[in-house]
């Protein structure tokens, strides 16, 4: 439909067709559908009303299409199941019959009515009539809309050059897109490059990673930016502008990595790649397989750090003359359509657990340090040497859950990889030194993946001893530097005191320190554990809530290599879909700005979770960046002047629903506002689970609870409603990042207002309901019954009076 057709439709007389679905007996079993249809035909603007056995069937769809044409219907209402299920189906039907899809409306008389009121046909039928009335009143105010399109730039940015970033970059580059891979270290490779072997297959980690690293280095579609940091990100899906700081290496790409320079460099420091177990020079390469192989000068360590050349040993040693102390930091601006965040994870620092003695006892090491010690390319040439005396220990203990699953010391979550990593490490020791006695102290062994249990069994068969119960303390024997582990074997209910030559603390993973910065630059949300939060934990597990941004690897949660690679390919595919399409349509839910009413107060700018509104205070102007807007509507709810009209969820449309619901017996009803993603879905789930609750609730759907303006609640009370329920996603789980915090603020303000006016504030309830909490929703409705029943006619009248102003809207 073109813009011209849209304006034509607006001028027309409103002709609504209503279809009441039986859904076999799903609805007709407890609702008299014919009676509802007959009732619908009496409503304003309704030109025809029919009850159909299965409206979603081909036959049902045909009937609607024919009616649209024959009866010149310009609005369609289907009273059937949840719009979350069949709204797309019926919108398509309308479009096929030449009707704009935004002129379609649904009444949910199955999940919200017949299924939750199975045993009271009369009351269910009455409720269905109300729901249809609400839909019809809203339908009359619906406006056609054209969805806007935003072009997607066919280039991607991958942040982080660990295995996840590498995989994502390669997949996208192989698909044909240009990729910028930004890594803060001098080489890509990440954690996987540090690890000796991988579980459960015991492959050599660097052997399988190095070819991929080299592919990245040579790929014509990949621009590799190592030793670089993200400075700033602007823009939105399809059109991000990214500023990158490329730090100077002071060595040009002429470097052949011969290493002559490092041999003569007088300065040394602990090598970060070997977690400080070995040294490097001021000019160095982090490890043999580094990509790029170009050396780098640590200018802070170098004798020439002040800018004056006092030492030229490396310059003299370099045959290719690749050393250039004049190199300067470079700021690079990139324009990309999609971004993949693959910044990885840090490891927990166990020195804050004093009773384990890490940092005090030389022979207590972390699992990451172990990887470097057991690695043939590591500081000890692959020999597991005790730091105290460089001897191979005869007994070794692993302590699990160090920094994980703890409310106090470390993080409350399970770090996912440590159990299997320990099992793999134990087997590695057994492989090199079969006589070694190995103990693993654990609370639960989590060997849940493919091939994991086999590896666990193999470790047991090879004589690794697993003891349930963590050591309460580790004490060192001064003479031998051996360690005593003291704890309770909780299966035997006995104390153990076990002496070993070396202790390996199996440390957990935690979000990278840089997570804060990346979160801020990209407006991302994080889950309680501090890792980035996905748009949907099941169905959009690699998407960020912000459009055009995807996650791969440990940035999203601790995971092993296989999962990181899987997720990276998924993220690449998701980003690829956007770029292949070349454009993204934005649902017509964005606000329309009414300049005459706007006071340029900036309240909308403050509440927008997506920074999608820009304020020009001087010119009294705001600009809405449609592509960045997700349509939550919290700006519309915040605007005191009505200067933002939320398309498809206008004030008038919502008020029409409130008015329709409160026309009859308002004083016995609950008006409930439910957000589309969680609480409306939660109410749907109550229906699917056939959880029964009282019939007196009328649900009004908004995209986000942030759309619920205080005036809607006030209107419901002014119309004589007994109670109002506002319901949204749990705090922290909002589908619009944090818009539901506005909901909380507004409801709290309303409570204060009610209290001040002498109203029972219990009549307004706020509840966070997730899509899985059908029972919680039903319980809330049940819980509200005594409130509804106890509201006196005087109280109803008083509320009407207090909120009288809300009727003027």
């Amino acid at each position, binding site marked *: 439909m073109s813009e011209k057709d849209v304006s034509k439709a607006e001028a027309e007389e409103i002709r609504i067709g209503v279809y009441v679905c039986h859904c076999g007996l799903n609805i007709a079993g407890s609702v008299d559908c014919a009676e509802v249809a007959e009732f619908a035909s009496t409503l304003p603007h309704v030109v025809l009303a029919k009850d159909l056995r299965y409206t979603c069937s081909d036959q049902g769809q045909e009937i609607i299409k024919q009616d649209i044409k024959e009866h010149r219907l310009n609005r369609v209402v289907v009273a059937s199941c949840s719009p979350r299920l069949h709204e797309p189906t019926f919108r398509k039907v309308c479009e096929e019959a030449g009707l704009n899809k935004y002129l379609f409306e649904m009444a949910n008389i199955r999940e919200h009515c017949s299924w939750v009121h199975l045993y009271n046909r009369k009351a269910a039928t009455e409720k269905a009539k109300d729901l249809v009335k609400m839909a019809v009143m809203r339908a009359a105010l619906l406006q056609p809309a054209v969805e806007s399109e935003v072009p997607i730039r066919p280039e991607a940015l991958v942040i982080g050059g660990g295995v996840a970033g590498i995989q994502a970059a390669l997949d996208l580059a192989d698909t044909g897109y240009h990729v910028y891979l930004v890594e803060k270290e001098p080489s890509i490779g990440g954690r996987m490059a540090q690890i000796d072997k991988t579980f459960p297959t015991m492959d050599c980690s660097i052997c399988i990673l190095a070819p991929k690293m080299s592919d990245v280095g040579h790929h014509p579609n990949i621009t590799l930016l190592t030793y670089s940091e993200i400075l700033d990100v602007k823009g939105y899906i399809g059109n991000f502008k990214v500023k990158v700081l490329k730090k100077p290496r002071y060595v040009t790409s002429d470097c052949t990595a011969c290493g002559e320079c490092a041999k003569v460099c007088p300065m040394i420091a602990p090598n970060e790649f070997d977690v400080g177990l070995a040294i490097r020079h001021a000019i160095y390469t982090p490890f043999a397989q580094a990509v790029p192989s170009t050396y780098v000068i640590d200018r802070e360590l170098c004798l020439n750090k002040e800018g004056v050349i006092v030492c030229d040993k490396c310059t003299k040693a370099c045959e290719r003359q690749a050393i250039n102390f004049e190199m300067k930091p470079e700021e690079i601006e990139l324009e990309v359509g999609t971004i993949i965040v693959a910044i990885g994870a840090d490891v927990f620092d166990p020195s804050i657990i*004093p009773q384990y003695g890490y940092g005090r006892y030389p022979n207590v090491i972390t699992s990451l340090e172990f990887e470097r010690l057991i690695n043939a390319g590591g500081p000890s040439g692959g020999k597991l040497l005790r730091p105290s005396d460089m001897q191979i220990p005869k007994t070794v203990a692993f302590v699990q859950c160090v920094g994980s*699953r703890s409310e106090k010391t470390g993080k409350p979550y399970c770090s996912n990889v440590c159990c299997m990593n320990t099992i793999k490490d134990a087997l590695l020791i057994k492989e090199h030194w079969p006589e070694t006695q190995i103990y693993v102290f654990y609370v639960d062994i989590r060997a849940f993946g493919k091939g994991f249990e086999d590896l666990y069994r193999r470790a047991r068969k090879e004589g690794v001893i697993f003891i349930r119960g963590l050591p309460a303390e580790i004490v060192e024997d001064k003479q031998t530097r051996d360690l005593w582990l003291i704890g309770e074997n909780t299966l035997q209910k006995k104390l153990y005191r076990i002496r070993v030559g070396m202790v390996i603390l199996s440390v957990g993973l935690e979000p990278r320190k840089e997570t804060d910065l990346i979160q801020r630059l990209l407006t991302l949300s994080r889950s309680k554990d501090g890792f980035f939060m996905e748009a949907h934990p099941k169905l959009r597990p690699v998407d960020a809530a912000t459009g055009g941004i995807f996650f791969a690897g440990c940035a999203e949660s601790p995971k092993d290599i296989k999962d990181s690679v899987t997720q990276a390919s998924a993220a690449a595919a998701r980003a690829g879909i956007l770029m292949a399409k070349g454009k993204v349509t934005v649902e017509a839910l964005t606000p329309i700005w009414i300049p005459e009413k706007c006071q340029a107060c900036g309240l909308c700018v403050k509440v927008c979770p997506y920074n999608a509104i820009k304020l020009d205070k001087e010119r009294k102007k705001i600009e809405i960046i449609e592509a960045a807007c997700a349509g939550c509507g919290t700006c519309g709810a915040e605007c005191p002047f009505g200067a933002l009209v939320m398309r498809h969820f206008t004030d008038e449309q919502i008020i029409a629903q409130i008015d329709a619901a409160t026309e009859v017996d308002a004083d016995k009803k609950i008006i409930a506002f439910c957000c589309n993603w969680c609480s409306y879905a939660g109410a749907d789930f109550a229906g699917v689970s056939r959880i029964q609750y009282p019939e007196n609730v009328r649900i009004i759907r908004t995209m986000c609870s942030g759309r619920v303006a205080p005036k809607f609640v006030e209107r419901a009370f002014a119309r004589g409603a007994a109670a109002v329920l506002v319901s949204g996603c749990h705090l922290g789980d909002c589908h619009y990042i944090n818009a539901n915090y506005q909901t909380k603020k507004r409801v709290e303000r309303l409570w204060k207002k009610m209290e001040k006016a002498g109203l029972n504030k219990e009549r307004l309830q706020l509840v966070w309901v997730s899509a899985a909490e059908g029972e919680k929703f039903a319980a809330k409705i049940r819980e509200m019954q005594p409130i509804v029943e106890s509201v006196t006619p005087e109280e109803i009248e008083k509320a009407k009076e207090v909120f009288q102003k809300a009727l003027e809207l």
Partner: protein
Amino acid sequence: MGDTKTQSTVVDEEFEAIADLEKLKDCFECGICTASCPVHELLDGYYNPRILLETLFLEKTAITGEEGLWLCAWCYRCYKRCPQGLKPPEIFNNAKNLAVRRGVTEPMEKALARILSSIPLPLVTLRLCFHPERAGIDEALLEELVSKTYEREVLSRKPETEKHVDKKVAVIGAGPAGLTLAYELSRKGYPVTVFDALPEPGGMLRKCIPTFRLPREVLDKEISRLQELGVTFKTKVKIGENLDFQKLWKEGYKAVFVAAGAHKCRELRVEGVELEGVIHALDFLSKANSGEKANIGEKVVVIGGGNVAVDSARTALRQGAKEVKIIYRRSRAEMPAIPWEVSEAEKEGVKIEFLASPKRFIGENGKLKAVECLRMQLGEPDASGRRKPIPIEGSEFTEEADTAILAIGESPDVSFLPEEVELNPDGTVWINPITMETTMKGVFAGGDVATGPATVIEAVLAGKKAAYSIAKYLEET
């Protein structure tokens, strides 16, 4: 425990008052609490806090019937190490409260009998560690019950007949660790002599623990029982001055147990510490406990957050101070003092200024007038596992005070020890963690001298473990 009272069903509401019941669901039974518990070891595993917590979780109605509830010695070592931050002593105390309210007394009686018969220094530890009265039992009744049970379980028991007259053991320090070892070994028939620099035996129990927490008659009773068992006390003996190790060996002692405690106050290096009115906590406590009137003013500040600081504050109140304020540089969660005793102090009127540290003491005519403090904020955890206090620049504020008691930690004075006895970096004596033997053959150590300041029950455990090791050592030599 099978009587009808203990088995009766209890309504859920009664359990709501039990602290941390909800947090208990975070417990993964790692066993750290049990392995940290001195009583678990003292009672050879009879008491197991982990299993007790699990009972509370699985079948809470049975909890009031558990004897174990009454065997917790309130040292909070479990809490300090629990990965989930649970406070078993308080969880158990709420359950004990419930038992008392429901009139379930049998488990407590059993526990009393067990403590009195199986824990060394039972009268002292009952007062200072087990605290059955905190569960709300009538104190007079409790007193009577204790003395009756003591009569039955302890006084009527005959010491062992076995004698090892030629295997004399010397104990340096008559504090709880030394007394425990003396008790254990003398019961096994070893001749034990306890040396102490102070005029009367008891160590910190006599010198520093306030009399309102431990009446000295109780301590005296305990010591006279040791004397009855044959323990010899030689007081006012300072090793290094009137006696040395060479002499001990010469006199026929076959093993030495060093339990000299931690009696050295850590120094505070700020301007004005030399002012009149700035005193050390141990000096103050020792004076107050000896019955002398300590010389303190009306407005007292105590610097520090450990048990000595809390004891000093409470004693200062009893010595007539009008206002007592503890100044501690971290927050409540990091305080090393026993949480329960901190709250008791607060109930008595002690104020606590958290996140503050003295910058200088301000005087007038050589006398303390005020303390200038600096506000702190907490940074990342340091090597002690606690968040490090970081001064906030420009946040100075002054507290008026005429007395400042410094209680910023104690360390052992080990100058008397021969060089063969090696030390830890923090100045405590290094011991083999299992045998408690020092680097010098035949010399063992335990208690505060080896661990730094700790609770009485921990010192008792050290004494008991050392007694076992020394007996084994003496058998083998």
